């Protein structure tokens, strides 16, 4: 059995009277590729938001297993959680639109490079060195994902599929141990989805990270993930390998309705 990376125990999120996530417990292991599926409004994105600190949990415990031991993520701000090694993409793309592709990636590297205030405003040799290091690292990453040609374009000028890819590259630039992808294939044509499938496999292979993916495109999910969680009405409905889930009567009922 592989070692755990992140566990969430009995987490609850209620907005006033509405319980968006009810008593959900999940665990993501090192180097795992996990899928999170469920009908619309099942609480998938809310769960991502809770795990990345965008919205605080009402109750429950979230722990991250790092080299330094177990770290509680409860009450941590999104920036702190990101610095701890969790990165994400967004369902409705949130790039830094007016900035160039290169800058989008370099911004995500902010915390990995030290550049003092006086170093940068007086342009000491150290400033040029750090900038060059950052740029080289960013270009390397862009090259891996075939984005070198558009490095100087503002992010808003890119086609939709490339924007999604850039968002993944930007998330990887924070050097995460855990990457959440929120509907990466949304709005993509079958060809782009096939590319994405390759891309996700490649990331997991090259970067040795855990990837959790929310997705409605079943061909993508069933093809790449090792394990699946199914959410419905904010509660965990099922857990298992793709083939187990495909035969699970409760899941079939949730998706197709009727008596199963």
């Amino acid at each position, binding site marked *: 059995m592989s070692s755990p990376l992140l566990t969430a125990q009995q987490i609850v999120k209620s907005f006033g009277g509405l319980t968006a996530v009810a008593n959900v417990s999940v665990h993501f292991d090192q180097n795992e590729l996990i899928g999170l599926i469920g009908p619309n409004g099942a609480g998938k994105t809310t769960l991502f938001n809770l795990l990345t600190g965008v919205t605080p949990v009402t109750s429950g415990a979230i722990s991250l297993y790092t080299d330094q031991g177990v770290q509680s993520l409860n009450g941590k701000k999104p920036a702190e959680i990101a610095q701890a090694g969790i990165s994400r993409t967004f369902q409705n793309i949130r790039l*830094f639109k007016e900035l160039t592709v290169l800058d989008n990636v370099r911004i995500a590297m902010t915390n990995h490079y030290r*550049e003092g205030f006086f170093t*940068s405003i007086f342009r000491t040799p150290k400033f040029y060195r750090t900038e060059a290091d950052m740029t080289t690292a960013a270009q390397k990453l862009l090259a891996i994902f075939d984005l070198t040609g558009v490095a100087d374009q503002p992010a808003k000028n890119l086609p939709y599929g490339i924007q999604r890819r850039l968002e993944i590259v930007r998330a990887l630039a924070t050097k995460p141990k855990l990457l959440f992808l929120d509907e990466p294939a949304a709005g993509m044509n079958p060809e782009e989805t096939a590319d994405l499938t390759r891309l996700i496999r490649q990331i997991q292979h090259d970067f040795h990270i855990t990837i959790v993916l929310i997705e409605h495109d079943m061909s993508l999910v069933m093809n790449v993930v090792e394990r699946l969680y199914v959410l419905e009405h904010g509660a965990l409905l099922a857990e298992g390998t793709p083939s187990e889930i495909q035969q699970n009567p409760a899941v079939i009922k949730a998706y197709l309705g009727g008596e199963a």
Partner: protein
Amino acid sequence: MKANLKYNAAWLGVMVLGFVVIDACEFLGIINSFIENMLVTIGINIILATGLNLIIGFSGQFSLGHAGFMAIGAYATGIITQTLVTPIGFYLSVVVGIVIAIIAALIVGIPTLRLRGDYLAIATMGAAEIIRILINNLKITNGAAGLFNIPPLVTWATVYVFMCVTTIVTVNFIHSRSGRAVMSVREDEIAAESMGINTTRWKLAAFVFGASTAAIGGSLHAAYIQTIAPGDFNIMASIAILIIVVLGGVGSITGTFIAAIVLGTLDTVLQNFGTLRMIIYSLALILIMIFKPSGLLGTWEFSFKRLGSRQRKEQSVHE
């Protein structure tokens, strides 16, 4: 590295050339005291507006209290140079002004910049009023009468050098790791946070930076004009700086320069028209808002680097 040196040298050349041209005109008598006054006002406005543009255009936070921080610098200089009538006294007063402005900016910024939204606008407006009313009622600032006979420790040349230095420092800040972090907050705060950017910290950095340049502008203003009163730093003064930023382009330092020069010249040319001036002024703003809402230059910046690479591209095409 070598390429960077070339572009830096080009900028240095422009700055030296500007200095030499003004100096020559001054020597030849083309610039009288009236025009010099205009040039100095433009220079000070550039310092104030670049700082405000950093806050509004680059970090995306709306500040309406720039004149308040300017007042801090102006009064620091006014009070200190009356007892220390030396250039050293002036530079000391600039530093004191900056330090007090930073403290004031932290007090206003820390609680409000933790929030998302336009809370800063209201808070800075209030803070600027508080500063003005404090100055109005304190003995050391001579109340509503203000300070006069401030020693003239500043010439146009001092203002020119200060303008160049603050612009260089601001532009260098923008084109660094810090500047990119600040701009990511403007672009998308939630995404920035998810990339590990401590948004509160970077918003505060930009705000404090802008406030300290405002203090520098205030110090220069006090030492050059030699008379200051609390009324000089009211909300209309803040809005006058805001107009320069908005007109030139929110997020364009080049635009700020052009707008400060255009408005400064317009102000002097239209001086004889009295109140008609304000009508022309507002008309110009309305027209800009209708036809070019992002300001004259939007976020466009003049860059020797881009100019250089374009020329190289054209050359290779011709070959």
